[in-house]
């Protein structure tokens, strides 16, 4: 019998907390816990129809396949599965990665790849490798909040570039780089999700991709291309990745198995120029020595015996229907003052409401009707995005999508009406922008709906209010 475990220590007193508080690093000061975050936790209740997550539909993976894969690993490579592995990852896993990248017309030297614990670790490692406190990172606005958190944890200064339906405004990027250069600031890298962006749902056009790669070369600027959704394409032709356009000189590439197989395995990868990769490898050694060997062997077993592409096709079929359902529901239930992106792939729609609606407050109201989304505020670091929301369409059934969007539409209409009453006028129709929705089918009336992404202009910039 093992001895009785010691009694757990008593909960902290205030004095203890103060003692610990004195030990916290300066970078943890940006890791805040907010009322809005507590609000988000409310969306976990089972009765809530939540469009808040970014969850792939793992229930569509056949459990008997998973059982066979795990059994095979247990029989054939038990000791190895339970052992440490090389920091850079198993060669078998890297071959699977080459396979996935080839599906998007990329060829990669396996020596240039490090297998990571999810794509999120790439964000952490690249930032750790390149960023000193106060260094500048250029990102899209809106950006993936998980990336912004990683950047902030290393005390980076993040500059966000406006987007439209063709992705990041590369012309504005160049203006910004000029301005920063004038201020003596040389950004360390540009972070972008060019395909089916999270949270914007838009895709960078080919001319902009070409220009971005040129800009990177002209200015000797690194680009981190985050591409979790590229294979989840529901229409149109694939655009070449920045990595393939650049050949891996200035573009670092982040890939993941999370959206094409399983986020639970926590398997991603980074491709980077060798000198950068060497540093990332050292950083990974310090962080976790190596990525889970068991997870890597599972991917290998899966790729060897099963047609991973047909599973992606299955997912693509499911998500396409769900996207179409959500777009149709938005058109039916959202008031004319609302606008949203029409993603050609990925998991998210970005909807923007009139300026007078704060989506953080709207979420509180929506939760009373048991429906949730992500307020747009977290996708910006400068107070923008307060009248936008991110809607995930991959994680809910079509019935629940229809019902959930109906409920959000009702509360939005309620607030639009109330505002009209308060101001004594029906709110004006928003001006139409020139940007046409991503991958919009020509002549389709619905696709003529334009994208409204928050601008930095005077009109849309809102002071950080209480």
């Amino acid at each position: 019998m093992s001895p009785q475990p010691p009694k757990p220590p008593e909960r902290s007193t205030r004095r203890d907390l103060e003692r610990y508080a004195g030990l916290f690093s300066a970078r943890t000061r940006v890791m805040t816990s907010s009322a809005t975050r507590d609000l988000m936790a409310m969306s976990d209740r089972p009765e809530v129809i939540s469009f808040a997550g970014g969850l792939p539909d793992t229930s569509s993976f056949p459990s008997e396949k998973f059982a066979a894969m795990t059994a095979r690993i247990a029989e054939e490579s038990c000791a190895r599965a339970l052992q440490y592995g090389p920091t850079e990852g198993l060669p078998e896993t890297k071959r699977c990665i080459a396979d996935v990248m080839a599906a998007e017309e990329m060829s990669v030297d396996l020596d240039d790849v490090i297998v990571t614990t999810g794509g999120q670790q790439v964000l952490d490692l690249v930032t750790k490798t390149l960023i000193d406190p106060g260094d500048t990172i250029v990102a899209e606005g809106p950006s993936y909040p998980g990336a912004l958190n990683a950047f902030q944890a290393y005390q980076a200064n993040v500059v966000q570039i406006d987007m439209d339906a063709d992705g990041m405004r590369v012309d504005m990027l160049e203006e910004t780089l000029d301005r920063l250069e004038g201020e003596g600031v040389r950004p360390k890298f540009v972070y972008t999700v060019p395909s089916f962006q999270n949270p914007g749902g838009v895709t960078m056009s080919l001319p902009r991709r070409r220009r971005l790669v040129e800009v990177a070369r002209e200015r000797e600027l690194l680009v981190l291309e985050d591409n979790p959704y590229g294979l989840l394409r529901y229409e149109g032709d694939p655009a070449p990745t920045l990595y393939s356009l650049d050949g891996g000189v200035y573009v670092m590439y982040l890939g993941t198995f999370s959206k094409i197989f399983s986020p639970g395995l926590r398997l991603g990868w980074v491709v980077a120029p060798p000198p950068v990769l060497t540093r990332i490898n050292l950083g990974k050694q310090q962080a976790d020595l190596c990525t889970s060997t068991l997870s890597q062997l599972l991917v290998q077993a899966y790729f060897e015996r099963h047609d991973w592409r047909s599973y992606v096709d299955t997912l693509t079929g499911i998500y396409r229907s769900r996207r179409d359902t959500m777009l149709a529901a938005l058109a039916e239930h959202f008031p004319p003052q609302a606008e949203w992106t029409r993603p050609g792939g990925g998991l998210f729609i970005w909807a923007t409401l009139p300026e007078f609606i704060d989506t953080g407050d709207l979420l509180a109201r929506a939760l009373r009707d048991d429906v949730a989304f992500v307020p747009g505020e977290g996708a910006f670091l400068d107070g923008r995005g307060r009248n936008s929301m991110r809607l995930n369409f991959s994680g809910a059934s079509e019935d629940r999508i229809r019902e959930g969007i109906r409920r959000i539409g009702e509360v939005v209409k309620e607030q639009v009406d109330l505002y009209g009453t308060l101001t004594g006028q029906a709110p004006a129709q928003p001006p139409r922008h020139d940007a046409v929705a991503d991958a919009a089918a020509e002549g389709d009336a619905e696709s003529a709906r334009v994208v409204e992404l928050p601008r930095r202009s005077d009109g849309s910039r809102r002071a950080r209010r209480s």
Partner: protein
Amino acid sequence: MSRVAVLAGGSSLERQVSLRSGARVEDALERLGHEVVAIDAGTDLVRRLRDERPDVAFVAMHGRDGEDGTVQELLEILGIPYTGSGVPACVRAMDKVLTKHLLMEAGVPTPSFFAFNQTAFRALGAADALPAIEERLEFPIVVKPSSQGSALGIKFARTAADVPSALVAAFSYDAKVLLERHVRGRDLAVSVLHGDGGPVALPVVEAVPVGGGEYDFQARYEIGRTEFVCPADLPDGATERAQELALRTYERLGCYGFARIDLMLDESGDLFVLEANPIPGLTETSLLPQAAEEAGVDFDELVGRILDSAFARATTQ
């Protein structure tokens, strides 16, 4: 030793804080030797209370249902003694508009205000009265939902153009909202605790935004953005007056056991009561436990005293 049901969670917007408060109370009760039954207040609350047959319920819920008298009403029906204020005090305190009317009648200073429900705007044309309100209150105006306990939905309107969207935001939380004169000054909290000789005001806690800058309601609820100073270093007599106002508020609302009263101290030294919280937070960073500790009452003793007050009320009824 007693069998204590700790009620926490629920479906209010302050669920997360409540779960933290509840967990901490449970630990303290166990250390005090009580038998603890943890209950996340959901649709089976009444059934669970009937099945578990606790001697007493410790209500560690914040916001809707837990702090507005709903759960207290159920406990009355079930005949289970419970901690904290009774139904009438909860009803009064959760409604900031009612609270402010009662305070004004009692001569307790509170910032001037106007309150409306949505019907006033939708059916009675109250929007036409907004310019007059704005003139009377002067900008900036604070717009807040009448019943929300945390910072959620509280907005500053700096100009007339901000008012409609601030109202829309506040109406996200409640059908009734108030527009209140903004008191520029120091943000104070006085907790009141049941004692042998009646309620006692604890040392004053001041919320100070980190790094100065513009006051931001949200900051108070974000770890790391606000520092709490206890006892607050206040001008002569201000501490005593703040404590006296807190006690008067507590008594006027009919609170029992414990409560936290939030006040503002303006630049000319005048104090104003903003609101009362019948079940303030009991987490590691909450203000009532900090104030109690400053008064020499550690967390376990605080929980024990709150529990004793529940039994004391039950025996006098």
